């Protein structure tokens, strides 16, 4: 891997808080509370990396994704893309950088304009940012459709004429149209059936290689992430609790939350599934409005110590390649 002086993406201490309007919203100047969706997340991705972000609903993984493509404005922290901080950018400056960072959303029924044909949907970003028209534009659109496996005869059709998997292909073509360096995919296969899901995963993996893109792949499905990502970040209530190479994190999870999460996933093999030890997880993820004190996982943690409710553990090195935010994990 050729290392540039700057990593392609470097997120430092990112915080995205959303104000909650209380009953006295009109009277009070300051909001009553904040949803601490993302709270102090740092993450680095080098050119060509595939990074997986996993966690349950409400852990902040989608907010993190949206902040990286600047659909949300960070409350604090920095997001550097090729060494330029986009966290505080706005207006023209931000528009110029947007082509580099593209996103694929979970629901291809909601992410495509129902009044635009496939051609228009894929052509739009090329028209706007690359200023192409006429024959050059259409040949570019057809080339993209071919790349994502959509037959060119579909070009005049509207999104409602397609299935979920095909719509996701349209969304991918649209995202690739600007030759981004960074592709953020937020649950790109969660709305799809298993048989179609595999097609889209294979497609994304192939395109990532072909275009040498960096990809942030966000999913609650650990199987999918294990399959595609080389490095994973496990999130819980706005924080990263563990990170490392996918194989190591999944085979030997260190943080009690990662362990709980992995144990909770049923294995599609009756013999393995029935012979392994089942520890039923405790409780449900608490609200990010009022997160627990200390370690945010401590009320549900099977290994919690009294000090866990007091001390907020930082992400610390476990070994050469892994970091864990739990002081009770044995370190090398």
């Amino acid at each position, binding site marked *: 891997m050729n290392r540039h002086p700057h990593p392609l993406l470097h997120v430092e201490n990112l915080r995205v808080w959303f104000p909650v309007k209380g009953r006295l919203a009109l009277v009070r100047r300051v909001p009553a509370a904040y949803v601490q969706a993302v709270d102090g997340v740092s993450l680095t991705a080098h050119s060509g990396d595939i990074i997986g972000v996993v966690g*349950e*609903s409400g852990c902040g993984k989608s907010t993190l994704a949206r902040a990286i493509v600047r659909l949300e404005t960070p409350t604090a922290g920095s997001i550097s893309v090729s060494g330029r901080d986009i966290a505080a950018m706005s207006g023209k400056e931000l528009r110029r950088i947007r082509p580099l960072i593209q996103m694929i959303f979970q629901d291809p029924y909601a992410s495509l304009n129902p009044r635009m044909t496939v051609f228009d949907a894929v052509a739009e970003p090329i028209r706007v940012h690359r200023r192409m028209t006429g024959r050059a534009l259409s040949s570019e659109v057809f080339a993209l459709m071919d790349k994502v496996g959509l037959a060119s005869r579909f070009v005049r059709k509207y999104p409602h004429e397609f*299935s979920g*998997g*095909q719509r996701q292909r349209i969304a991918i073509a649209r995202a690739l149209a600007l030759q981004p360096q960074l592709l953020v995919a937020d649950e790109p296969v969660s709305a799809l*059936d*298993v*048989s*179609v*899901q*595999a*097609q889209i*995963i*294979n497609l994304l*993996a192939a395109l990532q290689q072909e275009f040498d893109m960096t990809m942030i792949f966000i999913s*609650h*499905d*650990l*199987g*999918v992430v*294990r*399959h*595609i990502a080389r490095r994973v970040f496990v999130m819980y209530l706005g924080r990263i609790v563990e990170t490392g190479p*996918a*194989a190591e994190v*999944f085979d030997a999870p260190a943080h009690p939350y990662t362990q*709980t*999460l*992995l*144990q*909770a*996933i*049923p*294995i*599609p*093999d*009756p*013999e*393995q*599934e*029935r012979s392994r030890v*089942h520890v*039923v*997880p405790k409780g*449900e*993820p608490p609200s990010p409005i009022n997160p627990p004190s200390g370690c945010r996982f401590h009320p*549900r943690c099977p290994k919690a110590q009294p000090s866990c409710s007091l001390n907020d553990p930082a992400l610390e090195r476990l070994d050469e390649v892994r970091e864990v935010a739990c002081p009770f994990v044995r370190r090398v």
Partner: protein
Amino acid sequence: MPLLDVKDLRVWFHTRDGIVRAVDGVSFSLERGETLGVVGESGCGKSVTFYSMLGLLPMPPAKIESGTAMFKDVDLLTAGGAALRAIRGRHISMVFQDPMTALNPYMRIGKQVMEPLLAHGLCNRNEARRRAAAMLEAAGIQDAQERMNAYPHAFSGGMRQRAVIAMALVSQPDILIADEPTTALDVTVQAQILALMAKLRDELGMAMALITHDLGVIAGVCDRVMVMYAGRILEEAPTALLFRRPRHPYTRALLEALPGIQEAGKSLRAIPGLPPEQGAPERGCPFAPRCDVALPECADAVCPLMSLDELAHRTACIREHRAAGVGGGVRS
């Protein structure tokens, strides 16, 4: 005699765009105390099969074209409104996917859980209150007495599903039909709900039909599995057998398309094409157009679900029939 015996069930939807054969010639049975998994992708007819028996489908457009569904000497398909009302929620209960829409937002939790008992005249109000509290407690809701006065919005997703389960089981039904009961929940909560359902099933000695798209859920909980595709049952077998030695190309493809937590890297086997939207085809195997080992005759052969060498293992693949020396791939 099986508790529920379904023979040649056909449910077609007569829409403006033509006939959709949502369920097309489905036969299966459910034994007392048994857990049957029903797996398939969206639109395969797994929910329609069970909804039709309980009179939960809008008719028209749905129409039951043929079949019987015998439950204790009553044919559910011809029983009619009053007879079905006496069975629903008393002998056969359902748990739905989305616990928010399954609960009435304007009614206190307690009242909703008491409702089946009172509607069926099983006991008086005081007794119903006592039993509802006990059931909620058994479903893992602490301080059930107090929580009965709460409205659904005050409950988390997992708690709501516990309340829905309590509501379904309070009348101690013979059969529980659970339609994607954990799909809307986080994995850690899913593990709790599955463990709860298995525990209550054993305590109450009821039979369960678990409808899901998740093969992992099937592997852990079900005794027997039937695989549905385009309105037909393509394969049915005891769980261990089905996973160890799938005897239909669709089941094999489905298992191989699943990204596993254990292994990563290699490209997933994607199933080409899309599931048919019009339900079962008029002739031939519904999976033939996507099948990589289809024979020319698969397109129009009659493919009945037939027992193989192991009698409990049934498949609708004519290749497997021939290999096992049953049937002859009869042409229609």
